[in-house]
Structures are given as structure tokens and as C-alpha cells.
């Protein structure tokens, strides 16, 4: 199945769509995308995960990296996450720090 990522940058909102299986082999692509987007200092980072079928802790670590790289002021949105991927986010306590939404609605 593999992994693919598409990115749309901007100063207000930056959007990343994650598709497939995000394991430790794929995580560097995700991290690189975050590093590039961080240059524009977006206020909101929106991660579309409705087609993300698998996510290991390597993916979670990139989310922690995003928050630490972009600063505590950036709002993180995880959109469309479901099933076991959503379960992993919750088990890891990420629901305390990111907005989990079915469709994107800025808070």
C-alpha cells in the first residue's frame, strides 16, 4: 500500500494530506514536509488523515516535532481520523493537544 503525502503551504493555514501507511520508513517524508512548512510560520496546521490506514509511533513523534518546531501557538487539526489510527492518537494522549475533527472547522 505504501505511503504518500501532499502538502499545501501558507502563512495562515498549512495543509498536509497523509495517505496509506505511516511507519518509521515513511515518517522522514512527513518530517521533511513539516520542516518546509514551518518556514512560513503558519498559524494552523491541518492534517487530513481520512485515508491514513496505519500510523506507528514514528508518526506521533513527527506530530510532537511539528508542535515543537512550529511553536505552541500553532493550532494542530487532525481531520477525518478514524478506527485504530484515531484510537492510537487517543491512547497516546494527543487528543489533549490537537483538535480532532471529522471535517475541518477552525476553532
Amino acid at each position, binding site marked *: 500500500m505504501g505511503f504518500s503525502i501532499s502538502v499545501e503551504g501558507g502563512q495562515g493555514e498549512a495543509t498536509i494530506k497523509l495517505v496509506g*501507511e505511516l*511507519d518509521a*520508513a515513511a515518517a522522514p517524508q512527513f518530517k521533511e514536509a513539516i520542516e518546509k512548512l514551518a518556514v512560513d510560520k503558519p498559524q494552523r496546521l491541518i492534517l487530513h488523515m481520512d485515508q491514513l490506514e496505519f500510523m*506507528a*509511533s514514528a508518526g506521533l513523534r513527527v506530530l510532537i516535532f511539528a*508542535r515543537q518546531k512550529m511553536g505552541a501557538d500553532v493550532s494542530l487539526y487532525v481531520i477525518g481520523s478514524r478506527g485504530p489510527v484515531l484510537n492510537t492518537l487517543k*491512547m497516546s*494522549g494527543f487528543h489533549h493537544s490537537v483538535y480532532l475533527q471529522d471535517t475541518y472547522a477552525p476553532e
Partner: protein
Amino acid sequence: MDKLTLPAVLASLAELRRYAREAAAAAGIEEERSYQLQLAVDEIATNIISYGYKDAGPMAQIVIGGEITADVLIITLEDHAPAFDPRTRQMPDDDELSKPLEERTIGGLGIYLAMEGVDRFDYRREGERNLNIFEMRRRNG
């Protein structure tokens, strides 16, 4: 089930998950619990490849095997890296897990997810081999 030997590289993770997925299907384990098993195998294998075999050459290998008994599915990962028992790794507690992301430390999360996801986890050192053993009941409850 026949054992599968793979190069100890991150590109082998997908194949390791596929093995666990097929074993779970053969054992009649439902999808949600199959995913938990695949995640556990993926996390422990990632640790072996990234840390255990950090200084190993390109010949390093990881072996996955499966055994289905009347009650359980047992998946075993074998490697020849230095001895490491994942159960000794300090894992995040509730306090750590509820911290905001900017204050989170990144260690231990993968092993935590692995341990939480399977019914039983065991580790043994046999000679020069590490054995990481994952057990799932074939019927939930």
C-alpha cells in the same frame, strides 16, 4: 507457519506487518485486534532495526515466525542484536500522556503502544538471539 527472514531495514516493516496480518487472519482474529498486533510487531521491529542493529552491517537480519494453537496466536521476532528487553524500557505514565505536546518527551511511546496492544508480551534471550514474543487470544474475552 513458515518463518520469514528479512533484511533488518525499515523498508522491511511493511512485510513484517503483512506477515502478522496474514497470521491473524489465519487464526480468525478480528480486524481491530489484528491491527493492534501489527502495530506491536511494527513498533518492536522498528526498535530492533533503529537501535538494536544501529551499528550492525548490511547483513543484519530479522526473522518473524507464527504459531497457531487451539487458543492463541504466537508471533515471534528474532534478531541477533545486543540483548534488549523492551519490558525494562521506561514507559510514559498517565501524567506524561496528558502533557501538552510541546512538553512531551518522545521516548517509550512505541513500546507502550506495543505492550498495550497485545494480550501477552514476552522476551527471552537465547544464546546470541533476542526473542520478542507476542501472544493474541484467538477469541476475544
